[in-house]
């Protein structure tokens, strides 16, 4: 079993055996390791166990968390690591059997951290940093017609939205020069991308596109004689 030894002024304050899946460190009383000192944040850092691995994460504390005198955000703890929080030291120690395992497991095995705990942890980190967690997720894209149609705006809820004359197209456009499918808009890992599929002129900010292009907020899209503006939900005044 791993242990965390709390030291202050060269004196061992307490020895904490790692009996749970995680341990939190901070000034607040709810923590597993409570350090009553003003240099320590209420919820300062935590250690999570993933299999035989222990991960130390700073919870965006005011004064930071240091391992072997280097500031860390997240860190994979090793035997005899020295963690500094304020003026307190925490020594991390593995049992004999864990040390043996750790040295043979240097291949960097893949492992999984409990998902629910993981989400909670990241949300907390983000909250401390004042980051809107929902902002990290992909925002819903919207295109609004600028002219050429009496339709107003369309939310791009599908992963793949087809634009053109076809009856199956999510966005149906008419006109002599309109292809059955003139363009597609797809949600991709990097954001929304528009692809010209041939037959009709497709432009983004007045540049003709032949292949795919990632869309940015307030890009102007032209498909045949239609004009649209693209934006993502929450990006401000769309129109």
């Amino acid at each position, binding site marked *: 079993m791993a242990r965390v030894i709390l030291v202050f002024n060269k004196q061992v304050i307490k020895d904490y055996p790692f009996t749970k899946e995680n341990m939190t460190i901070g000034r607040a009383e709810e923590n597993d390791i409570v350090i009553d000192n003003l240099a320590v944040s209420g919820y300062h850092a935590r250690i999570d166990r993933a299999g035989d691995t222990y991960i130390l994460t700073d919870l965006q504390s005011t004064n930071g968390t240091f391992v072997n005198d280097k500031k860390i*955000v*997240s860190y994979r703890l090793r035997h005899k690591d020295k963690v500094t929080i304020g003026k307190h030291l925490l020594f991390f120690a593995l049992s004999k059997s864990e040390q043996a395992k750790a040295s043979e497991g240097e291949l960097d095995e893949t492992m999984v951290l409990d998902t629910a705990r993981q989400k909670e942890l990241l949300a907390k980190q*983000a909250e401390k940093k004042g980051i809107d967690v929902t902002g990290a997720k992909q925002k819903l894209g919207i295109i609004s017609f600028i002219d050429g149609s009496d339709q107003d705006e369309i939310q791009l809820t599908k992963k*793949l939205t087809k634009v053109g004359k076809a009856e199956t197209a999510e966005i149906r456009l008419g006109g002599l020069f309109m292809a059955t499918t003139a363009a597609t808009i797809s949600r991709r890992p*990097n954001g929304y991308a528009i692809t010209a599929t041939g*037959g009709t002129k497709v432009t983004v900010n007045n540049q003709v596109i032949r292949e795919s292009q990632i869309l940015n907020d307030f890009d102007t899209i032209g498909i045949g004689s239609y004009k649209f503006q693209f934006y993502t939900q929450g990006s401000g005044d769309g129109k």
Partner: protein
Amino acid sequence: MELKAAGITDVGLKRESNEDYFSIDNALGLYIVADGMGGHLAGEVASKVAVEVINKNVKRWIAQHTSDDELFDYPDSALTKTGNYLLSGIKLANRVIYELSKVYTEYKGMGTTIVALSIMPSVAIAANVGDSRLYLVRGNTIEPLSKEHNMVTEQLEMGLISEEEAKVSPLKHILTRNLGSSDTVDVDVFEIEPRNNDRFLLCTDGLTDLVSDREILEIVKNGKDPEHLCRQLIVKANGAGGSDNVTVSLIFVHNLEQEKQGIIKRFWSRSKQ
């Protein structure tokens, strides 16, 4: 549309067993790669079970035109019908592995990543959980069609760490999602319209840990034989250390009929009448 595909899995240079698994089905246009984890033989079992559960069920659903409400778990209205087959197949595989790992002590803690691709002329569907990847190589560009579910990527996306910190982070191999560790799982699914001559690459982190996107592009965009290119990718990964099992699967799209010009097509069909 014609699909030409090849896949190779290699144990690498440092490991004793291969926990990766893959499948190729050109008739169905379904391609899967999985990277198993868990001690003893459990990792090998997890990746194989996942691939087989998905293959078997997606194949059956497609053949029977199964409706959304008969699928496992809730369908996603943002997806096409086949997109939901793939999503449901992966969620089902997750449940099967999760239950197996609970019932049999020798399978305790087993899990696997998954990356799957389904190609039809109208849509290409990419789905993944974990850190195995899917790339689209189109002409001279390479683009990911998968998301990485590990701690570093999530911290990066949330703005908690910088790109530089991410590159050197020791937490790359800490996954935040996989198949088997929880009774439900979130799957990332993307749908795009395929183009003629598109090339898709499915691979495990044994490749991407050691070979950069640019190097992958340089290999994949040239040459005509997917099997030969897969071999080159494996050689490249092993040449860079071969620290993990490596699996690559390449799919080439040929003879995909592109839509003719709107107006030309109409005059063309009129003149034929």
